């Protein structure tokens, strides 16, 4: 039976509230976001660059009043920077400070492995927070395979085991969003623990809404022309199709340049905002007959 959730009460509620915070989600995105909250499962979002994967996590945080804890993944990320680390320097100071006292070794030992000397990193921070939290693990595909193993305990049981202190379980389960550009296939184990959402370029109507909501100064008619041009560009065989972020940038450019009409000349003058390969630009010029 549908149960009230701490995050969203229904798919429609998710769509409406995300829209309020400036994120126009399509029905599938809204349904999946609702499910992630209702089932308390991590959400893995995959898709090309610049379609709003990270933005989704931010929007969920904004709209539910939760705080965002972000772990940016990169090659070489390790336990010490993802989970926790002992503050060696402080521990050393503590040992030296107690040198003159008649404390036994075991007392000192118990003393230096306590909360005071623990440096929490994003994953542990998110787990220990008592307020509603959105945990964003950005670009998971950039990490090494070993780090995925590290994530497993956090993603399935929402707990972190620290050998010296024991297991820290989540006081309140965070809303976890993982994003990936699919440059690497994630392991089955990670995928099994997550809900999956593939974000793609939106249809013309939605994209126009997004552009208009992000750049309110843009003329309605120019917005229509811009979205039409973008969707024509995406149909070409390009190395990198323009993303939503780039359409928004383009809209901002047009506003800044005070271009009131997106004709061929305006398109070819500002093409660099959306297409970032020489061959792509040449192709667009040829196919759209911009300079004939």
């Amino acid at each position: 039976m549908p149960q009230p959730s701490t995050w969203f009460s229904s798919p429609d509620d998710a769509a409406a509230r995300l829209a309020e915070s400036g994120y126009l989600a399509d029905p599938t995105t809204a349904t999946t976001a609702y499910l992630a909250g209702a089932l308390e499962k991590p959400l893995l979002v995959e898709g090309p660059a610049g379609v709003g994967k990270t933005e989704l996590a931010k929007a969920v945080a904004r709209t539910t009043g939760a705080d965002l804890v972000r772990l940016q993944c990169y090659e070489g990320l390790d336990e010490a920077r993802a989970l926790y680390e002992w503050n060696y320097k402080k521990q050393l100071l503590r040992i030296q400070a107690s040198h003159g006292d008649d404390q036994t070794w075991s007392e000192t030992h118990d003393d230096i492995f306590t909360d005071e000397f623990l440096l929490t990193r994003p994953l542990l921070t998110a787990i220990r927070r008592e307020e509603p939290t959105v945990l964003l693990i950005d670009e998971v595909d950039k990490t090494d395979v070993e780090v995925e193993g590290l994530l497993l305990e956090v993603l399935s049981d929402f707990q972190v085991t620290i050998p010296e202190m024991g297991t820290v379980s989540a006081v309140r389960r965070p809303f976890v969003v993982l994003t990936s550009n699919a440059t690497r296939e994630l392991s089955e184990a990670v995928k099994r623990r997550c809900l999956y959402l593939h974000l793609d370029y939106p249809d013309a109507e939605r994209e126009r809404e997004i552009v208009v909501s992000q750049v309110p100064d843009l003329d309605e008619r120019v917005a229509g022309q811009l979205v039409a041009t973008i969707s024509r560009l995406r149909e070409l065989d390009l190395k990198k199709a323009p993303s939503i972020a780039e359409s928004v940038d383009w809209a901002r450019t047009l506003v800044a340049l005070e271009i009131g009409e997106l004709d061929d000349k305006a398109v070819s003058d500002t093409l660099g905002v959306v297409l970032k390969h020489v061959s792509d630009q040449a192709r667009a010029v040829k196919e759209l007959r911009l300079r004939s």
Partner: protein
Amino acid sequence: MSGLVDRHISFLEALRAAGLSVSLAEDLDAIAALSALDWDDRRVVHDGYAATLVKKQSQRPTFDALFDVYFPRMVGDGVAVRAGSDDDDGGEGGVRDNAEQLAGFRDELFDALSDGDQQALLQLAAEMVARFGAMPGRGPGLSSWSAYTALQRVSPSELVDRVVQALLADGRLDGEARREAGRRIGSFTKMVEDDARRRIAEEKGPEHVANVAIRPSIDRIDFTAARKSDLEDMRREIYPLARRLATRLTQEHHARRRGPLDFRRTVRASISTGGVPLVTHHKPKRPHRTELVVLCDVSGSVANFAQFTLLLVYALRDQFEKVRAFTFIDHVHEVTEHFTPGADVADVMTNLAAATSHAALWGRTNYGRALAKFEEQHADALGPKSSLLVLGDARSNYSDLNLDVLERLAGAARHSWWLNPEHRRHWDTGDSAASRYGEVVPMVECRNLTQLGEFVHDIL
């Protein structure tokens, strides 16, 4: 209730049979998701299943097709179509399929196609199968709906020119309009096929359809069995595949980068820890890059395979020291100059197709002759640093194989491989000389994008 569970279980079985790895945990997640959702909208159920069961975008088309079979959009002709077609049919029992009806239907279809109205197209697809795809009078157990018959009868592909005209009038440009029209008609054809599948599933049970009618995902389709639309999709997959391979390779190379101990840096670093070398420093390994010589058969039967492999190799150009490519049918022609850095994929394909004519003298594949010509004209391409990659099905029309030439070529190169796009069970059938060439040069089966990606990864 039990019916629902049964359907759920058999849906999952079908997904597993189609190659999706659905675990028990995901099964339970799907149930939990369905309990949390309302069932009043089919799309919501679809999204719930998709989010919990499908974790790879490439498997999504398979999932969608199976979902349509197990949870059909409507039963029979549905409600909407019946209401809509009452008036133009002229009551019950009216003739549903004659020349006049056909012309009328095609006009309707044309309107919907030029507007790109998805909802109308879906309805038309259902109507089309119902009116033109029915095959009454066949014995029980035979499928009574045929997408093929319906498509032959209405032949939407003949509408391409009209749709193009309509799009041109709409202000689209020439090449673009043609592409768009082709895409719309392609997607309509798919709708018709889906609808026929739905109807058959209704009569014979979904398991039957799931077993026979679901195509494998795009990275598992054989190069030699691919349709035109599949080839287009495959070509779009090449760059993402190359990017994935490159990332994976860089990561693996970084992991293996530790070279011999760098004594000076280790000692210098040990100063900060009181002379105790806590962390060792290493010299980086010198990266090793191969020169690659690709020799590919571009005769009709394997042309697609050769193109994909060439594209992939060139997309990964920076992983190699140098790449030289030759095409052959019964003569050798160098095509290296077509692959300039940053060149446009579509242009490269066109140039390659045009260059095919240089690779043929008489047009009948002759491996022996091509190898001999290669040795004669381009022997300098192979050296101790280079690797030789031969692409082809080793079907040489029973001509002289020139095994000794291949042996000399393989001897001159550092490594050599032969990629064969045919299934291993077809090797040595007919005029295939697979195992005889395979004795000289290790032969690898490479039928689809997955196998191709794996192979390229392994040789780098």
